[in-house]
């Protein structure tokens, strides 16, 4: 996706206009975040992962607290 495409998508989807320099820096940051989380998820996430597992984790922990 080119820089123009990136800014254009945000404009089209969210009605938020980005300056050219702002869009370039934002695209780099988003690219880094996207890649890192995608890689981490590929290594960990399974079909059976509970979508709301954090709430379950907290509830389970709460039950063990006296």
């Amino acid at each position, binding site marked *: 996706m080119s820089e123009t495409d990136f800014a254009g998508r945000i404009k089209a989807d969210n009605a938020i206009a980005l300056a050219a320099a702002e869009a370039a820096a*934002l695209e780099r940051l*988003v690219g880094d975040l*996207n890649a890192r989380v995608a890689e981490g*998820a590929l290594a960990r*996430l399974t079909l059976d992962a509970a979508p709301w597992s*954090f709430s379950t984790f907290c509830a389970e922990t*709460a*039950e063990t607290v006296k």
Partner: protein
Amino acid sequence: MSGLFTLGLVEMADAVADGSVTALALTEVALKRLETLGPRYNAIMALDGGTALEAARGVDRARAAGQPLGPLAGVPLAHKDLFYRAGRVCTGGSIIRKDFVPDVTATALERFDRAGALDLGTLHLAEFALSPTGFNAHYGHGLSPWNTAYGAGGSSSGSGASVAARLVPAALGSDTGGSIRHPSAMSGVVGLKPTHGLVPAFGAMPMAPSLDTLGPLTRTVRDAARIMSVIAGPDPRDAASLPAPRLDFEGGLTGDLKGRTIAVPGGYYREATTPEIQALMDAAVAVLKEAGARIVETGTPDMALVNALMQVMMTVEAATLHRRWLSERPQDYGAQVRARILPGFGLPATRYAEALMLRAGITREWLAAAMGDADMALIPTLGIPVPTIAETTQGTPEEIGAALGRVTACTRGINYLGLPSLSVPCGFTANAMPAAFQLVGRPYAEPALLQAGDAYQRRTDFHARLPPGCGPVD
């Protein structure tokens, strides 16, 4: 009466209860200090002295009539200006909300009211609670009582400055990526970021609801424990609070840590810490060991992933909440705040869903690596000395972003993990600014963290030191 401002929260409550001081006297002193010293640190948004004085007289009448008093009866407080009180303006640090009057009252404020605390007004914060230093393009930067060339820390900047300067003995803050712990550390006071959901968030302006937490800033751990006794507990208006167990926050404050194990994680946290801060961490560990704690060294999992997951979750949720105004009123956002929200518009939905679905597993990974079988982990709150305002506001956007990233390096990941963290002042760096460690525990481990923090403060006096120029006010 001039020394009343030095009393802590529990001391004030006890003094009102036993009749040695009136709520009115405490309130008059606090109002005078808020009006006189508050502007020096840009700590105040709006005061309501008339209502507070009338409430104080009511507490004194109730005591004189022998009526039962709440655990905070007559204690003057003020809070970050993002807690709604029906009929009172709540700006959230934004000019967009300069005239916003909510029609509900935050659960935490309702619980303070029931405990007899007095609400003197609202305190400065970063715009929409989105700056770790207290930056606010519209209302000015929150300033440190230790040196006004430095920020008070954010986003709960007015809370940190007001407690440090002895304007009020305690204040509420909120913490999405460190916004209680930054001002606590940078202003030299105690801050408790509770387990996500332990303190109901109803009626607090949201930033990223999956990460938002509410908690106290105080001078002593003892005072933070009392506040937690008042504000923690389930509320049907906040589903995240429903699994919270009933905890005893004050009963374990014995000063003795025998039987407790404290982990000191290396790896990422050590690399994010300067030698000067590390020396203060080592000294703090020695004090906790002297109090009876067993100390073990541990590792740290992949914090780059944890921090990225946190940023995905925070920016997507904040972008969702701010989309309308960012589209229709872009000129009403400061550049730094806008830059922190915008990434959320560019991320695929799958990344956000992954951040949600990975959360429990990543939290278990962190607990296993950083804590093992220990009761808590000790890491710096800020791994660097407090930066000047200039160091976090001048330069290219990338340079500013990097400077802010160093401030939040040890705090923001903890919000993704949803864990409780207690920040405790532990000395001063060469720039004469405060430093602090944080104790991080498993969900609902607040009583253990408070026990350790209290044991530390019984053996040190950093929390008792007064910033320059914060003595009695004529």
